[in-house]
C-alpha cells in the first residue's frame, strides 16, 4: 500500500494519540524482536558472507527447484541458486533503497515544509497546494512514471521511490511546521526577544522533525515495499543482482509448483515492514511518553 500510509498513520497517530489510556504492555516483546531482526538485516547488509557462504550468483542447473531443506534452507530457484543466499545478499540493496528513498523523500519534504511554513503567506498557500496535488498521485503511479523516465537501475529506483513517497512526508512536515510555528513555546521565545533564525533552529526544526523520526522509521519499510513493487513490474535492479522484489517477480511464474521462490523474498519484505512499523511505534510511544 501506502506511502500516504505512513504520513497518514503516523501523522494522525502523532497528532491525535495524546492521551490514549492504557497501552498494550504485552507487546513489549515485539519491539525487541523487531530490533533484533533489523540488526540481523544490518549484519546481512554489511557482511552477507558471514550469514551465507553460498554464492548467490552461482548457477547449478541440476539443483534447480530444490524445496527448502538442509542444504538449502529456503530452497533453490529455477537456476539452482540458493534462495537464502540471494535474500541475504539482496539485503544491502533493499536496505539501501529503503534508506536512500526515505532520505531523499525527507530532504524534499523538509525543504518544502520549511519553505511553506516560514516564508510568508504566499509560500504557505503555494506549498499547501503543491503538497495536496502531489499527494493526489498514487505513490505507485508516481514512482512508475519516474522509474520509467529515469531508466532502470538502483539510482533511478531510489529516486522514483523517494519522489513517490515524498508527498506524504511533505504533508506531514508542512502540517508540523505550521503547528509548531504557532506553538506556545515559539511565542514565548519571540516574547523573550529571540530572532527568527534562532527560533527556527532551536524550536521549529527540531520539534517539527520529532514525529518525522517515527514516520521515517516506518517509511524505510514502506520504501522497500514500493521499490519491490517497481521491481515486480520489471523496473528494478538489473539481473543477476539479487533483489527481493525482482526475485519475487521472477518466481511468480513458478508459484503453482515451487511456492518457495516467491514466499521467502516476500517474507523478507513483510518482516522488514513489520519490524520498522513496530519499532517506529515503540519509538513513538517513548516520544509521547516524554511529552504527555
Amino acid at each position, binding site marked *: *500500500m*501506502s506511502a*500516504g*500510509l505512513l504520513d*497518514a*498513520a503516523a501523522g*494522525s*497517530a502523532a497528532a*491525535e*494519540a*495524546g*492521551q*490514549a*489510556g*492504557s497501552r*498494550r504492555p*504485552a*507487546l513489549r516483546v515485539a519491539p525487541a524482536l523487531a530490533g533484533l531482526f533489523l540488526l540481523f538485516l544490518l549484519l546481512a547488509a554489511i557482511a552477507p558472507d558471514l550469514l551465507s557462504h553460498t554464492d548467490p550468483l552461482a548457477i547449478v542447473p541440476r539443483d534447480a527447484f530444490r524445496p527448502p531443506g538442509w542444504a538449502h534452507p529456503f530452497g533453490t530457484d529455477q537456476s539452482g541458486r540458493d534462495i537464502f543466499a540471494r535474500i541475504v545478499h539482496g539485503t544491502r540493496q533493499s536496505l539501501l533503497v529503503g534508506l536512500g528513498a526515505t532520505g531523499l523523500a525527507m530532504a524534499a519534504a523538509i525543504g518544502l515544509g520549511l519553505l511553506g511554513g*516560514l516564508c*510568508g*503567506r504566499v509560500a504557505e498557500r503555494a506549498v499547501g*497546494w*503543491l503538497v*495536496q*496535488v502531489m*499527494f*493526489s*498521485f*498514487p*505513490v*505507485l*503511479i508516481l514512482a*512508475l*512514471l519516474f522509474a*520509467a*523516465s*529515469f*531508466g532502470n537501475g538502483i539510482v533511478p529506483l531510489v529516486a522514483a521511490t523517494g519522489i513517490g513517497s515524498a508527498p506524504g512526508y511533505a504533508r506531514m512536515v508542512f502540517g508540523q511546521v505550521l503547528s509548531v*510555528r*504557532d506553538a506556545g513555546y515559539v511565542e514565548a521565545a*519571540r516574547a523573550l526577544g529571540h530572532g527568527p533564525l534562532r527560533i*527556527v533552529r532551536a524550536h521549529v526544526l527540531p520539534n517539527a522533525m520529532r514525529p518525522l523520526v517515527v514516520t521515517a522509521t516506518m517509511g524505510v*519499510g514502506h520504501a522497500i*515495499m514500493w521499490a*519491490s*513493487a517497481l521491481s*515486480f*513490474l520489471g523496473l528494478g535492479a538489473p539481473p543477476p543482482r539479487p533483489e527481493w522484489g525482482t526475485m*519475487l517477480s521472477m518466481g*511468480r511464474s513458478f*508459484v*503453482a509448483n515451487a511456492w518457495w521462490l*516467491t514466499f521467502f523474498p*516476500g517474507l523478507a*519484505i*513483510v518482516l522488514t*515492514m*513489520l519490524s520498522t*512499523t*513496530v519499532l517506529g511505534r515503540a519509538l513513538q510511544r517513548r516520544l509521547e511518553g516524554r511529552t504527555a
Partner: protein
Amino acid sequence: MSDTSPFPTAPAAPPAASPDRLHVLARRILSRCLGSVGVLLAAATVSFLAMHMMPGDIVSAILGGPAADPTPQTVAAAVREYGLDRPLPVQYGLYLDRLLHGNLGTSFSQHLPVIAVLRAELLPTLELAASALVLAWLLALASVLGTVRRRSWLSALGSGLETVGAALPQFWLGLLLLWLFAFTIHLLPPAGSDSVAALVLPTVALAVPLGGFLAQVTREAFEIALDQPFVLTARARGLGDWSVRTRHVLRHALLPGISLSNWAVGALIGNAVVIETIFSRKGIGRQLVLGVSSQDMPLTIGIVLLVSLTYVVAGFLTDALYVLVDPRLGARR
C-alpha cells in the same frame, strides 16, 4: 517568520446560523473546484514531463516501434502532427491546448482513441477498487469493534493482526492467495475479468493491507474516543457497552479513516497496477504498465489524468461523507 501570527485566538463565533451561509458554501465549492483543476493540471504536467524524459524515441513509439520501419515522410508527418520539432514549452502549450479541447489523442500502441480505451478499462478497475474498499472497511470495523479494549489478549491479537495485515505487500499476498485458493485447493478461478468469483482473490489481496491500515487508524481514534467524557455520560445514562461503542464511539473513530479513504481510493487504483498484472485482469492499472513500457504518451497521460480525476471525485465524496458523520465541519469550514 512573520511577525504576526496568522492564527490568532479568534473570538468565539456566534452560534446562530448566518444568512451568508450559502454564500460561504458556494465560495467553498468554487475554490474546491479550482483546486481540483489544479490537481488535474499538475497531473498532466508531471506525466507530460515524465514521458518526455523517457529514454525511448517518441516518434518511433508513435509509429509503432522499430518493426514499423516508417518512411521518412511518415516520420516527418508525425513530427509535425505532434509538434515534436518545437521547443518543449511550445509542445507543452500545444498539448495543454489539445487537452482543453477534450482531445486526449489516440493511443500509439492500441490504435484507438484514448477516451475509448479509458471507457473500456475504467469500470473493471473501479469495480475492483470499490469492492476492495468495502471489504477493507468491513475487516477494519470487525477488528476494531470486536477487539478494542476487550480482554487484553483479544485486544493484542486484534492490533497484532492489523499490524501484520498492513505490512503485507499486495503483490505477495496476491501470489499467496493464487497459490492457495486457485492452484492448490482449486476453490476460486485464478483469472478473469467477468465473473464475480474471479473478483474475490484480487479484492482480498487489495483489501487486507488496506483494512489493516484503516483498522490501525480507526483503533487509535476509537481508543481516544473511548476515553472521552461523553462516553462516560452516555454510560451513566444507562447505555450498554455495545451501544456506546456503535452509537457514539464508532462515529468518532470513523473520522480519520474516512478522511483517509480519499487517499485510499488513489492507493487502491495505484496498487491495482500490480494486482491486475498478477491476476491478468483487465483494467487501467495493467493498461498503465503497458502504456509506460511502450512509451504510449497519450494513453499514459490519459490514465494518469483519469486516476487524478477519480481522486478528485473521491475527494468530494469523502468530504461529503465526512460532513455527514461530523456535521461540525460543515458548519465551521
